[in-house]
C-alpha cells in the first residue's frame, strides 16, 4: 500500500472520532465514586508509611514493555 492510500485509510478510520464531541469543563463526581475513593484512601495499605516500592517497579516494567512494543512495530 502506498503512502496516499495508507493516509486515506487512516482518515476513514479516524472520521467517527473527529466528529465526536468531547465535553470539557468541571466534572461532577458521583456519590458512588466519592465513596469508593474514601474506601481506597482509608485502606491500611494506603496510610502514611506504607511501602509502595512495588508500584515503582510496575511502572518501570510498563515503560520497558511499551518501549519494546514500539521498537518491534
Amino acid at each position, binding site marked *: 500500500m502506498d503512502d496516499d492510500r495508507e493516509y486515506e485509510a487512516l482518515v476513514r478510520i479516524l472520521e467517527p472520532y473527529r466528529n465526536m464531541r468531547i465535553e470539557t469543563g468541571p466534572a461532577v463526581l458521583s456519590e458512588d465514586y466519592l465513596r469508593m475513593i474514601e474506601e481506597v*484512601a482509608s485502606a491500611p495499605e494506603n496510610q502514611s508509611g506504607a511501602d509502595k516500592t512495588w508500584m515503582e517497579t510496575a511502572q518501570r516494567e510498563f515503560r520497558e514493555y511499551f518501549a519494546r512494543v514500539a521498537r518491534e512495530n
Partner: protein
Amino acid sequence: MPAKTERLEPFPTLAGAFARAKVRFVVIGVSGVNHYAQTAGLVFATQDRDLFLPPDPANELRAWHACRREGFELWCGDEPLGQPMDRVLAEQVVSRRALVRADGHGLLVDLTLVMAGFTFEKVWSRRRVFKVGEVNVPVASLKDIVASKAAAGRPKDRLFLATHEEALRELGRRRRGRPSADSKEHRHR
C-alpha cells in the same frame, strides 16, 4: 523495613535528592493516583510525574539544582530553562506560575506551581508520605487529586476519571466475588 528497589529507579532517586535539598513537593496527577493502587492492574501507565511545588522561588531554585545534579535537563515551554539559573529566574517563573519540565533517564517530571482548585498548603496538610525503596515520597491525598482533575475538566481528565471510576467499581466487584461486566460478556458469547 521497606523493600529495596531491585535497581535504582530514576524517580525515587530524584525524590531522595529533593529531600536532601529540602525541596517541598507533593506528587499529584495520574502518578499520584498510582500510589493508591491496590493491585498492579490498577496502576495507570504513565511516563510523567507531576510534582506540585509551592510558589516559593527559593524552593523552586533548590528543585532545579537537584534535578541538574541528578542528570535531568530542564525545559520551560519548548526551550531549555534560561541561564543563569538563579533567584531572579526563579522569581520570574514563580510569578508566571510557569511549568518547568525535567527530562532525563527516560522520565519526564513536571514541576508545576498550579493544581486546579487547590493551594499548595492545603494539599500539603493532607498529604500521605509513602516509602519507595528507602525514600519518603509525599503524595497528595487521593481525594484532592481526583477533585483537582474534576475541577480542571480537560478531556484527558474526564477520560481518566471515567476510567478510574470503572476500575474501582471492577475492584469492588471482584472483592465481593461477583463476576465482572467483562466476564458476563464472555459467558454470553
